[in-house]
């Protein structure tokens, strides 16, 4: 099959986006993959979600995309109290007089966000799900208030999922609205010291930044500011001077590119709106070679299969929405950027930019390998190096980026398999993971049963509206309704936020057997169980305690207390356990119950993790069982290993309405936890 060579116009359009990719790549040191992903997202008119540790330059990169692309842009910082009018626009109250009646109507006038071509949604997960639902629907449908939006791409940023952050992570369904998902790595924590050295050198050459450095401080004195009341905080701003603004230097005012944490001078656009839109249209119209589709089907099969094998990461999502239309748009964009006349199998490399939250981490790490194997020909050429080449030129480049792109983004420990801080290795290879989900689900059920609903709390998240009860609450009332109310034009009271906060009550103590018989795989598996429980507790801000035991109890105190919220510190401890000594149930149970005794509330749990019979101490733990009943503490028992479960564990759990679980090693390695 011969395909027509791309004409000069197409080459020019592709060249504009290659320039964009190159300029984006210069914004941050060592984040080439993200630069490519964002370029593809804009070219394919898809939304993108950027996540990474604090201070790695997420916002920087997103803002650079907006200004470099010359798009009309609006930035919205999400926070707890974001309101409908922030998202959508002004309110229009209209009154229509009819001969027989009068009609009052409240409408919304599309605000700057709805007029943006590139919308920047900073800290997206900070808003409660209730506020995000409608917004995300608007993003997906690209229409609001009855009209189509000019939106091309929305770029959202968010923190890495982190247990101690006071926010709930986005749900997979919400994340799925963002076709492109990118994870940035910190240079230091990712141990990319060469890149760090480059950044240090750039910073050492930095000159004062004109955008933030005001030699004449008086110009921004409040008295002056007061004369400029029209300068509203939220207004559409054309980021970056247009192409005709006369800026020729790529990075005005600074000795080099921006760096994370420095407020960037808006970068001059590398293309105008007409070029951008033409390129997007041309990319969308690109043909896909039939063999590419065949390869895509095979790729999906492989990914599905691999994801199913990594069963512990069952909550990943390969939705029809993303893997049909969005994926193919990205594949086309990849080919277009490469200057190819049609999408070839190697353009499936674009799928890599979609997988951060859709595939288990192991599969993500292996993505390049899987694709390479599938294509069975020279290594997949990625955009990073094509981007550096001549605009529109077909690339035959070497695969210098392949390795860098494949280097896994380092994860926070709550990400499923990445859980274990340095898992103890056996025979040079960690054993297959323990399937702890059944236990965690049951435990969550118990915890939720013992929980009261979120409490009304003036500092909590808005979880809906209710009528105003007290004039003090006007601060939280819907401003428009409050206004009408004050004017006596509102029948009834204005609605006000109902704020709730999950009660941070409850505690769980984990007692982990580290006697000699737990050596080897059992140590690894029980670490995984402990980390899973910590994760559950952290999500609910429950206090946790961790007691390792053999013939003695070894509680891990933080700040002199058994129960605390230093989840990550415990997670580290749990990864370091060494098996030694003999088993004693009495000592750890007593330690845990003493620790729980001071507290109150229903939601108190102890999880006892063991592989054997108690040998030392009171083997029936009669007194501890009594104490637990009196305190209302549920003692859950988990028995690991092949032997018979000691009957005393059943007694402990049954008497205190605890769960009874056991972990059975699987034939192919791994461990499954099931109810006894």
């Amino acid at each position, binding site marked *: 099959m011969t395909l027509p060579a791309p004409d000069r116009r197409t080459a020019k359009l592709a060249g504009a986006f290659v320039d964009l990719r190159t300029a984006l790549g210069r914004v941050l040191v060592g984040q080439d993959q993200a630069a490519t992903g964002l370029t593809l997202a804009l070219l394919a008119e898809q939304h993108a979600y950027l996540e990474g*540790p604090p*201070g*790695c330059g997420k*916002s920087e990169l997103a803002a650079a995309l907006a200004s470099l692309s010359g798009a009309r842009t609006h*930035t919205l*910082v999400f*926070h*707890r109290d974001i309101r409908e*009018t922030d998202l959508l626009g*002004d*309110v*229009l*109250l*209209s*009154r*229509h*007089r009819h001969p027989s009646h009068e009609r009052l*109507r409240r409408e919304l006038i599309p605000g700057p966000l709805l007029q943006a071509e590139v919308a920047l949604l900073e800290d997206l997960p*900070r808003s409660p799900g209730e506020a995000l639902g409608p917004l995300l629907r608007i993003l997906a449908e690209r229409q609001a208030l009855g009209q189509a939006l000019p939106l091309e791409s929305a770029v959202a940023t968010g923190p890495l999922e982190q247990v*101690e*952050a*006071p*926010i709930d992570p986005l749900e997979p369904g919400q994340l799925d609205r963002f076709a492109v998902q990118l994870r940035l790595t*910190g240079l*230091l*924590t990712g*141990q990319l*010291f060469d890149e*760090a050295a480059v*950044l*240090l*050198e750039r*910073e*050492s050459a*930095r000159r*004062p930044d004109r*955008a933030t450095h005001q030699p004449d*401080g*008086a110009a*921004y*004195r*409040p008295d002056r*500011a007061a004369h400029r009341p029209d*300068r*509203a*905080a939220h207004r559409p*701003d054309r980021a970056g001077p247009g192409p005709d603004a006369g800026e020729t230097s790529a990075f005005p005012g600074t000795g080099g590119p921006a*760096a*994370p*944490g420095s407020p960037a001078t808006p970068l001059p656009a590398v293309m105008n709106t007409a070029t951008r839109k033409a390129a997007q249209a041309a990319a969308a119209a690109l043909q896909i070679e039939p063999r590419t589709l065949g390869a895509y089907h095979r790729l999906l099969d492989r990914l599905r299969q691999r994801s199913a094998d990594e069963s512990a990461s069952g909550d990943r999502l390969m939705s029809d929405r993303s893997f049909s239309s969005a994926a193919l748009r990205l594949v086309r964009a990849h080919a277009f950027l490469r200057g190819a006349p049609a999408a070839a199998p190697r353009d499936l490399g674009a799928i890599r930019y979609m997988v951060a939250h859709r595939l288990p981490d192991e599969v993500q790490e292996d993505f390049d390998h899987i694709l390479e194997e599938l294509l069975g020909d020279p290594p997949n050429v990625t955009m990073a190096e094509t981007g550096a080449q001549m605009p529109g030129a077909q690339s035959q480049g070497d695969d210098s980026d392949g390795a860098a792109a494949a280097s896994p983004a*380092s994860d*926070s420990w709550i990400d499923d398999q990445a859980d274990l801080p340095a898992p103890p290795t056996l025979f040079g290879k960690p054993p297959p993971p323990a399937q702890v989900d059944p236990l965690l689900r049951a435990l969550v059920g118990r915890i939720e049963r013992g929980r009261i609903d979120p409490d009304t709390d*003036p*500092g909590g998240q808005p979880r809906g509206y209710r009528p105003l009860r007290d004039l003090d609450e006007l*601060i939280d009332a819907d*401003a*428009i309704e409050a206004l009408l109310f004050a004017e006596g034009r509102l029948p009834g009271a204005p609605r006000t936020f109902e704020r709730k*906060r999950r009660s941070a009550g409850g505690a769980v103590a984990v007692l982990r057997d580290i006697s000699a018989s737990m050596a080897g795989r059992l140590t690894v598996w029980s670490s995984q169980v402990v980390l899973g429980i910590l994760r559950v507790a952290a999500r609910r801000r429950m206090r946790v305690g961790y007691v390792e035991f053999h013939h003695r109890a070894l509680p891990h105190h933080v700040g002199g207390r058994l129960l605390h*919220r230093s989840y990550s*510190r415990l997670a580290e401890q749990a990864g370091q356990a060494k098996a030694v000594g003999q088993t004693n149930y009495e000592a750890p149970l007593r330690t845990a119950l003493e620790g729980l005794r001071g507290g109150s509330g229903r939601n108190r749990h102890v999880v006892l993790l063991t592989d054997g019979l108690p040998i030392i101490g009171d083997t029936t733990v009669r007194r501890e069982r009594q104490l637990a009943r009196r305190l209302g503490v549920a003692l859950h028992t988990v028995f690991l290993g092949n032997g018979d479960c000691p009957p005393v564990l059943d007694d402990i759990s049954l008497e205190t309405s605890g769960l009874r679980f056991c972990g059975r090693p699987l034939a192919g390695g791994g461990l499954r936890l099931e109810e006894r």
Partner: protein
Amino acid sequence: MSSLADRVPRSVSDLTPLRDLLDHHVVGHDEVKTALLLALITREHIYVEGPPGTAKTRLAEVAARGSDLDFFFYQLHRDTRLAELVGDIVLERRKVRTDGDAPGTAGEAERIHQRIEPGGLLTAEVAVLDDISRAPGEALNVLLRILNERRFGAEPIPLMAAIATGNPMDDEYYNEPLDPANLDRFALQLRVSGLIQSGVDDAKTLIDRFAAGSVVEQPDPEPVTDRATLDALNRRMYDVEVGPAVRAALLDVLRTLVLEFECNETNSLLTDRTFLVKAIKILRGAALLAGRDAVDLADLAALSWMTTFRVPPEAHEALPRIVGRVSRQIQAV
């Protein structure tokens, strides 16, 4: 550059009156005072954690008044709302004509626009955020983003430095643990303790000076410097040279923290923003304060004002040792 060498000594003397003023009104706390001056010339934010009554707010206030800067003080609390920090929420109303929804009907409508009238943090040059640990983390992110970007929406703000104070985290009932991302916005982080509580010599001086009336409860100092001076210092800071040896030493210190002390994303806040970007500024500022026109290996000591709450305690305590070792190695090469 001989002109630079000429200017640098003056830069130190420029801040001497302010330092004297701080010394006059506050006894002890040398480290916090130096860090405050450093914050003002590098335009970085500073977080001071310590028990109540340790002159945290007083230091901030004297520094702000003494440099004739607009000052915003806010006591954070559990119910802190954005509007309290950034100004008033204003509703603007405009009458507009609309077409009636049926032919022949008259239409009148009112367009209501909600915006924020800048005030508070948006118009201040120095902001003191008291008890920042009491505000719920989810309410703080906008505040801290403003601090970081020094702009609100599209508007740059005149803020030079925010000084936040917090109480020790031991008391988990009253305090919310600060979100790591939030804490990272404060480049300089210090821990203070009370003079009397810790029984240092300064405690006696403090009591003597109160008794003599030379330290008063409500200081109202006259300005001894101004924004123009601080701006000039800030510009001069960028002339301070950061040589390859210092950069190599800084990187070695960071490498040691990551590889030897196992600082990672779960136990530390070793962010690129802070340690690769802001650290350079802090080092330059420290050199400037010491009257030098190039960063010296000795200036690396200022790094321990950045690690206080960002790395595990044992790593923070070991920092002077690490810096010393790395400096010796670099010097030997």
